[in-house]
């Protein structure tokens, strides 16, 4: 029996410093904890061993995976190969920070099979970098990318933030322009979100820095979309732009409800229709027996997730699949769909509902109208 392939996510919760906007699961830890963490991570991978499962992509994210000794990364990748059937053409990505990358690390990654690097560039403007607490400079970022190229990494992504305080369109466009010049085939554009409890939010609340107005962020986003399109980057998902054949398989997998294992602190899995999550407390992860919090989405939740996730991509949501789940969207939401089609928010093509190119900014509002 052929099984559809799955994906693997590995979480590396270590950073050399915490960025002001970050509220994800990452921190600065001692070398001893790092060592124990990777031991536990190995144990977790072994626990889930299943050589019958084909893996089409691996994503090592964080945190800052590039901040730890490369030997740890090597062990983990090797462990994955031992316990799963990693497909030959699997996409294997690692996230890297321009500050912590060097030639040795890159060569090590290359040797153990990593074939894609995602750089947290965020901006190529020194002022902007400083405001959000990034430790690198523009020059360091450019050098890191060049170095990766030298080490024969062709599949490179750069994360870029829109809406950094003080950022104007010109600054943003310059960042993108530089990335294009560097021939980066994949760019992710996210909007800076002021999450509760982050230093950035503190700074904003204390009026130390000014937040960029929402309309401005969207305006920038739409302009960047056009700019990238002009340079033959295709937006295959709200935040992701890629040259032909450089779309991130792992990323698309998330939006298309592909199943995945998540290993490590606070990692999430989606296996056999259920969602699992690991603890996000380091002590618990290291000292306790591995226990996953399990949640099986109800039929309605499955439908909601399918609409919510798939509509974010250019491929849209499959009307037939929804029908298989018992939701005849075309019939039940006829009025809403007619309205949205008439006003050019969505269109129907090949049995898929897709969002019009210039309306990706209001995806959530469109989703809300289409939910059962």
């Amino acid at each position: 029996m052929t099984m559809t392939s799955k994906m693997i996510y590995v979480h590396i919760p270590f950073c050399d410093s915490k960025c002001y906007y970050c509220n994800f699961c990452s921190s600065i830890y001692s070398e001893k904890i790092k060592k124990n963490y990777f031991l536990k991570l190995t144990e977790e991978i072994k626990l889930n061993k299943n050589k019958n499962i084909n893996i089409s992509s691996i994503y090592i994210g964080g945190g800052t995976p590039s901040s730890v000794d490369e030997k740890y990364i090597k062990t983990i990748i090797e462990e994955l190969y031992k316990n799963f059937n990693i497909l030959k053409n699997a996409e294997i990505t690692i996230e890297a920070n321009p500050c912590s990358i060097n030639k040795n690390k890159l060569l090590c990654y290359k040797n153990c099979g990593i074939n894609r690097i995602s750089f947290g560039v965020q901006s190529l403007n020194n002022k902007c970098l400083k405001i959000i607490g990034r430790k690198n400079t523009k020059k360091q970022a450019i050098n890191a990318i060049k170095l990766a190229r030298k080490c024969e990494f062709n599949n490179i992504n750069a994360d870029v933030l829109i809406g950094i305080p003080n950022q104007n369109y010109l600054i943003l466009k310059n960042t993108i322009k530089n990335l294009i010049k560097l021939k980066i085939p994949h760019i992710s554009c996210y909007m800076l979100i002021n999450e509760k409890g982050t230093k950035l939010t503190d700074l904003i609340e204390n009026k130390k820095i000014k937040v960029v107005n929402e309309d401005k962020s969207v305006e920038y986003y739409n302009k960047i979309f056009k700019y990238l399109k002009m340079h033959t980057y295709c937006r295959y998902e709200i935040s992701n732009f890629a040259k032909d054949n450089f779309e991130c398989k792992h990323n698309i997998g998330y939006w298309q409800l592909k199943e995945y294992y998540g290993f490590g602190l606070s990692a999430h899995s989606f296996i056999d229709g259920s969602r699992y999550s690991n603890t996000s407390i380091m002590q618990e992860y290291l000292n306790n027996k591995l226990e996953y919090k399990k949640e099986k989405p109800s039929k309605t939740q499955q439908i909601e997730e399918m609409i919510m996730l798939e509509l974010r991509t250019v491929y849209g949501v499959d009307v037939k699949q929804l029908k298989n789940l018992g939701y005849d969207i075309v019939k039940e939401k006829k009025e809403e769909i007619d309205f949205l089609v008439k006003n050019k928010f969505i269109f129907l093509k090949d049995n898929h509902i897709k969002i019009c190119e210039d309306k990706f900014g209001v995806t959530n509002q469109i989703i809300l109208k289409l939910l059962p």
Partner: protein
Amino acid sequence: MNDRQKKIRNFCIIAHIDHGKSTLADRLIEKTGTVSKREMSEQLLDSMDIERERGITIKLTPTRMFYNYKGEEYTLNLIDTPGHVDFTYEVSRSLAACEGAILIVDASQGVEAQTIANTYLALDNNLEILPVLNKIDLPSANIEKCKKEIEDIIGLPADDIPCISAKDGINIDDVLNQIVEKIPCPKGDINSSLKALIFDSFYDNFKGAICFVRIFDGTVKVGSQIMMMKTGKTYEVTEVGVFCPAMKQTDILSSGDVGYICASIKNLSDTKVGDTITDALNPTKEALAGYKEVQSVVFSGIFPVDGAKYGELKDALEKLKLNDASLVFMPETSIALGFGFRCGFLGLLHMEIITERLEREFNLDIITTAPSVSYHVYKTNGEMLEVSNPSMLPPISEIDRIEEPMIKLNVYTPPEYVGAIMDLCQDKRGVFIDMQYIEKTRVVMKYHMPLAEMIYDFFDNLKSRTRGYASLDYEIYGFMPSDLVKLDIMLNGEICDALSLITHKDKAYARGRQIAEKLKKVIPRQLFEVPIQACVGGKIIARETVSAMRKDVLAKCYGGDISRKRKLLEKQKAGKKRMRQFGSVELPSEAFISILKTDDND
């Protein structure tokens, strides 16, 4: 008359709001040992949460006390009454069940609007009035001045008035003694057939509708066959009792008594307040006078936020109606709000209280439309329509004239605010009639004014312009033709019926602009631009635009954790549930409320 009856005193307490009515009631209860100190909770008779919080009495709450006067035990039945102008009707109900009334005057404030209005009501009911000066403990109390006011303004002798502090329990015995000495005992014949006045009623889930009664003639006990004189329906009594102040079962109620009757009455409308209960087998010939049918003066649409809760709203209104005869309602349909009810209220406070009770006691989310008065619309074909819902106004071409209800308004104020009040009244289309100095520090200003102006932020304005010193009372005296227009609000080009108003032509422009601005603030941005237009007779007089929403959060999906996305979606879904779909526009319920009141900062 028998000895038992000679030792009963039925009385109520009347006062201007805040003059300490409920506090005195509590002291009387405490002093007579009806309720032990331990059981006393602050303001015992105000049992509703809203009453305690706002410090007002809405419902009538009777209680029976025993007082030893010169070695003999007397039964004192107190019926607490509301003080606000909106509830004059309820006051008149309790007055009809009593022989006397204690009139409280705040020794620091003096005679106020409602003091006078309630005194007149008591006099109309031939009650013996006992004036009492309260709050003598306050440094600002001026006993001599207040006594003079009572003599001059009200016309009651003031030489032996009890001077008390209900709060500190000073001279409460004086009040109790005067109740026994001055208030006449109830007349009535214990041997003639039953004649009992329903002065209030209450719905109990187990016992059915419970009638609060004053027995005028005869007796009633368990097993008695009774008849409601208005409906002719008969019941067998299952329980009778008195209030102490909790309901306590007794064997019998006889002439002069105040108590309650249960008779498995299932239908709320069968216990009409003001009706007479009599013996079914030997009915009395003549019913008691009952009450004047109450007139609603303020009308508003009430709709459930969740359209599916229409049935629950209906049940809730019916239950409230049982305890509050002055509430009237009938089904109404709105394009914007769906199915709901047009409700009539005694005034704005009454409306606020009803809506608050619907939300609190019945846990309903409701939308209230702007309050309106009832207009007399004369059509060109001679027909007259009563219109209390602006969207029911016929087309202009069919209207000959519109008449609006007018009030006689009395404002009582210290003289320094006369100018401010004149400005306000003028602004509210008031016509000055007269002004009199009651005394050096107190003026009464008399105006004729459209009721519609009165219900729209007049009271708040008066209070803020006079720092709360002015008080008012009013009565409706008739209808007058006026230059009125219908102000419509269009959203995305469609008239939203629930937002329409009838207003004076000269004010339409300002109000239209104000509402449009307000709506712009409360309507969230949508997928497309939403024009908000205010128009009169098809002519647009104000316009605002809610620009299209463009932003959604574009966040990274870290490590396959979609729970964040889910949470956001759930949040947005919940927000959407509270929205009303009007055409293609989504309206939050705040949109309907926001036009009710003016902001001072606007």
